[in-house]
């Protein structure tokens, strides 16, 4: 366990962390086209053999372009080679006559062959890029190579090993690579060729379509959230949707002259959105943690009840949507199909939250962090966060009218009550004593919650053309009596019982009870659909 925790800003900033700089991480890439192309892979392989540097070009042959006698892999003090003797011999050779021959002026040496585990491959006539792929296929470990003097008969065999490019423990890139060496052959971003280059060799990816900037503290416009715009557009104020192809967008993009003049106007992209001012992270990140694990567990107990209640509200509302066969016109048919699907996705996701919340409670208890045992939380909250901060409304089973949709959006709103409570959960779990796994579960719930909000806003957008007459897409659904809904309710009670047993045992992944509950959910869906066809909804509460 860690003994020292940095508290203030200077302590945090100065904390020495082993590893590659953050700019090398995948999530640091700003682009959306070819994630992962943060360096030119050929540059890694140019130093595949310790002490030698090759160039993989497009013409035939792999020329040797340098001898690096200071390569840390040649020095037993800085690198433990697979074969210490080979390391000594290779170092002596490269520092001695062999090294001098290889670097003699007006000569070119090429990589003639590579050999590993008894298999030898001749590279003599291979195009550079093919040779590269063959070199790429070498495994870490002993390798023999032969270098040949171009235009002569001389060859030099060398025994060494394929470099271990990154330290297997720390992930740090081999010290042999110089700063900038891995990206040296990539196109330069923000410059003239940013506009035209299609080779996709970008040091940092080149965004093509992006979402419009979100003003901090302002409710995001659902239309803008859905509309990708062309990042390279000349009219920076334009929020017009990008055309589907590169050619169609060309006309409105900055030309060469303009990009040289205004490259600084091209926005940074974060989380898909353009950012032109200082980025302000969400305030919720620094929510107040709960004082004790018990207080946290109590909160999770009630959050689980809340998740359960909204899952049922969403399910009920979902069954109030007409089937595509019951409505006229393609647009409406597509709309109801979309809305039903999205409502189900959200409801299922709430069920997942219910499970995660219970898992958190269970894990807290079994890690010895809470002081008293708790039963799984499968109750159904009676009150749900309302539209105004701090306001509560009674739980209800009702149709997906525009007002009802507003209420759902209010529950799921980022920085709303639910989001705020999970932010507190997360802030608590970020404390070192809780460990990573719990924190990540809470993070997933938070991230998922964000998606619910976006999905509900999409539903709102899709239904907008019909909101003048909601009956066009809504069934006349009213709650069934217990007798009418007996089949559905029996399944529901039984699956909740399964979940209670499964959550109690804490085995969240494999429990047969979970599988059984899932099967009953499909049955419940059919029973509810049958009721809905007759204008009745399942009276969950």
């Amino acid at each position, binding site marked *: *366990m860690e*003994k*020292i*925790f*940095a*508290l*203030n*800003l*200077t*302590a*945090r*900033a*100065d*904390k*020495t962390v082993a590893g590659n700089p953050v700019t090398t991480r995948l999530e640091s890439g700003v682009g959306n086209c070819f994630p992962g192309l943060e360096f030119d892979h050929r540059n890694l392989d140019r130093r595949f053999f310790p002490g030698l540097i090759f160039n993989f070009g497009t013409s035939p042959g792999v020329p040797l372009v340098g001898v690096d006698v200071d390569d840390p892999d040649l020095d037993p003090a800085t690198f433990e080679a697979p074969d210490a003797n080979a390391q000594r011999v290779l170092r002596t050779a490269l520092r001695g006559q062999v090294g001098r021959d290889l670097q003699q002026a007006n000569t070119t040496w090429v990589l003639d062959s590579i050999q590993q585990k008894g298999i030898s491959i001749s590279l003599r006539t291979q195009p550079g890029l093919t040779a590269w792929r063959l070199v790429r296929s070498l495994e870490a470990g002993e390798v023999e190579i032969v270098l040949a003097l171009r235009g002569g008969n001389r060859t030099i065999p060398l025994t060494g090993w394929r470099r271990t490019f990154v330290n297997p423990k720390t992930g740090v890139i081999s010290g042999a690579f110089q700063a900038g060496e891995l990206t040296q052959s990539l196109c330069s971003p923000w410059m003239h060729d940013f506009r035209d280059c299609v080779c996709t060799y970008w040091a940092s990816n080149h965004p093509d379509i992006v979402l419009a900037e979100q003003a901090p503290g302002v409710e995001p416009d659902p239309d803008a959230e859905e509309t990708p715009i062309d990042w390279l557009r000349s009219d920076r104020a334009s929020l017009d949707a990008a055309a589907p192809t590169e050619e169609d967008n060309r006309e409105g993009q900055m030309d060469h002259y303009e990009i040289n003049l205004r490259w600084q106007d091209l926005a940074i992209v974060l989380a898909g959105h353009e950012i032109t001012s200082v*980025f302000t*992270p*969400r*305030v919720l*990140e*620094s*929510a*107040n*943690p709960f004082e004790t694990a018990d207080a946290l567990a109590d909160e999770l107990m009630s959050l689980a009840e809340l998740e359960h209640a909204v899952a049922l509200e969403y399910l009920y509302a979902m069954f109030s949507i007409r089937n595509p066969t019951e409505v006229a016109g393609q647009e409406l048919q597509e709309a109801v199909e979309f809305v039903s699907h999205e409502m189900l996705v959200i409801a299922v996701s709430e069920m997942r939250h219910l499970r995660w919340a219970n898992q958190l409670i269970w894990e807290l208890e079994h890690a010895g962090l809470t002081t008293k045992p708790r039963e799984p939380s499968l109750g159904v909250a009676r009150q749900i966060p309302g539209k105004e901060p701090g306001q509560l409304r009674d739980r209800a089973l009702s149709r997906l009218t525009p007002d009802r949709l507003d209420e759902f959006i209010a529950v799921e709103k980022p920085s709303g009550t639910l989001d705020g409570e999970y932010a507190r959960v997360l*802030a608590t779990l970020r404390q070192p004593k809780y460990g990573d796994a719990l924190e990540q579960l809470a*993070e997933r719930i*938070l991230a998922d919650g964000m998606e619910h909000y976006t999905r509900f806003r999409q539903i709102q957008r899709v239904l907008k053309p019909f909101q003048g007459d909601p009956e066009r897409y809504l069934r006349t659904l009213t709650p069934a009596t217990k007798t009418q809904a007996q089949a559905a309710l029996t399944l529901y009670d039984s699956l909740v019982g399964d979940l209670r047993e499964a959550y109690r045992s804490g085995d969240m992944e494999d429990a047969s009870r979970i599988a059984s509950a899932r099967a009953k959910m499909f049955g419940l869906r059919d029973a509810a659909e049958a009721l809905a066809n007759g204008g009745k909804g399942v009276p969950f509460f």
Partner: protein
Amino acid sequence: MSQLVRIEGQPRATVPPQPWHLLDGERPLVFVVEGSRLFGVDPEFFSALQEGRVDAEEALMASGAPVVMEDFTSGLPEPAAISLNIAQSCNLSCTYCYADEGRFGGKQEFMPVEVAFQAVDRLIEGAAGRRVTVGFIGGEPFLNRGVLYSSVEYALARARTKGCHVGFSVTTNGTLLNDSDVRLLRDNGFAVSVSLDGAAGLNDRHRRALNGTSAFESALERLRPLLRDPGRARVAARATIARDDLRVAERIEALAEAGFADIGVSPLRTSPNPDLVLRGEDWSRLLEQMIRAAEQEWLRVRAGAGFRFSNLAIAMKQLHAGSAKPLPCGSAANYVSVSAQGGYFTCHRTIDDPRFSLGTTEQGMSAARREHFLQARHVDRQEPCRTCWARYLCGGGCHAEVLSAGRSGCDYIRGWLDYCLRFYDRLLRERPDLFPYPGEVS
């Protein structure tokens, strides 16, 4: 008066500087002096540090890179803040005033407008586009209202031409403010520092109106419109604590009730009346009072309120940022003061003292003198500061006070900073929203 500190050259002492300060408690803390880095540590590790175990000390030092302190040996930028001593005269006669009850040793003077303009010109020129601040002090600056108004207007116009931003501040006793002054302060976003010591009884004991009326009442009466609607201005109360009444919480409470949202206190270290200056055991009593006031603040802030005790609020901000400074203030570095006659001095406390002279608005400011002044006062060259764990938080104490009265109350400062470090840790847990960590993005 004896000179207690050596202000030049390398120290002779061989005691090594203290590299960290250990704070025991439920969650033990270690404050690493270099870079003002604060760490929470587990109790076992803390014991190892207490016992001086080498492995623990090495682990602690490995947690951060060494920090090189600014030494002012080259390239000192021009100051970005000046204070104009526009009225070396006062309508009050406070018993403890360093300006000799407002008489300035018999040399009452008003700054001519030309001097003010010249100082503003040099400031804006030297700042080369940086944000600048023009402060007005005295005496009581509103005794020279005409120059104050014209200087604001002039500075705004000059700043516009030079494309820089100018901010204003004023230190006043508040008793002369009129409606037009209030408008000026509001519209120009002045930082207004009002000298008031607490409720009427406490305040009027030392802060005396020449005509015998209550200085507290007359100040409040004039200040009320500004306190009610400060506009863009930020209004703060600054209380001086003399040794005859060391209470802090009561002063804060009274001034908050009077309408101030930002209240700071400052102990009296030098005064023409030595009976009022804090000494000996006063310091530990003052520390108790400061902590009592801070604990009351804790209850408010924990419940979600903002800070009003600015000594504590500023300490929290600086501890969070890990502020580490080799000097106690910006004096002679980023800030200088201008006397009524146009002399540059290291700060408003050293006006007309030739030892602190830096040049004139006419001739300009001597960079060499500023550098020499700062180098000589670098906290790493002061005794006993050089080895003190709190040196980069305290900076060595007010230059003017140190020269006239030596260093006193160091245990009080260390005690207060020790308390503040623990307070920060408590607050970090209860109100993390007050302390954003840049770069922590979801």
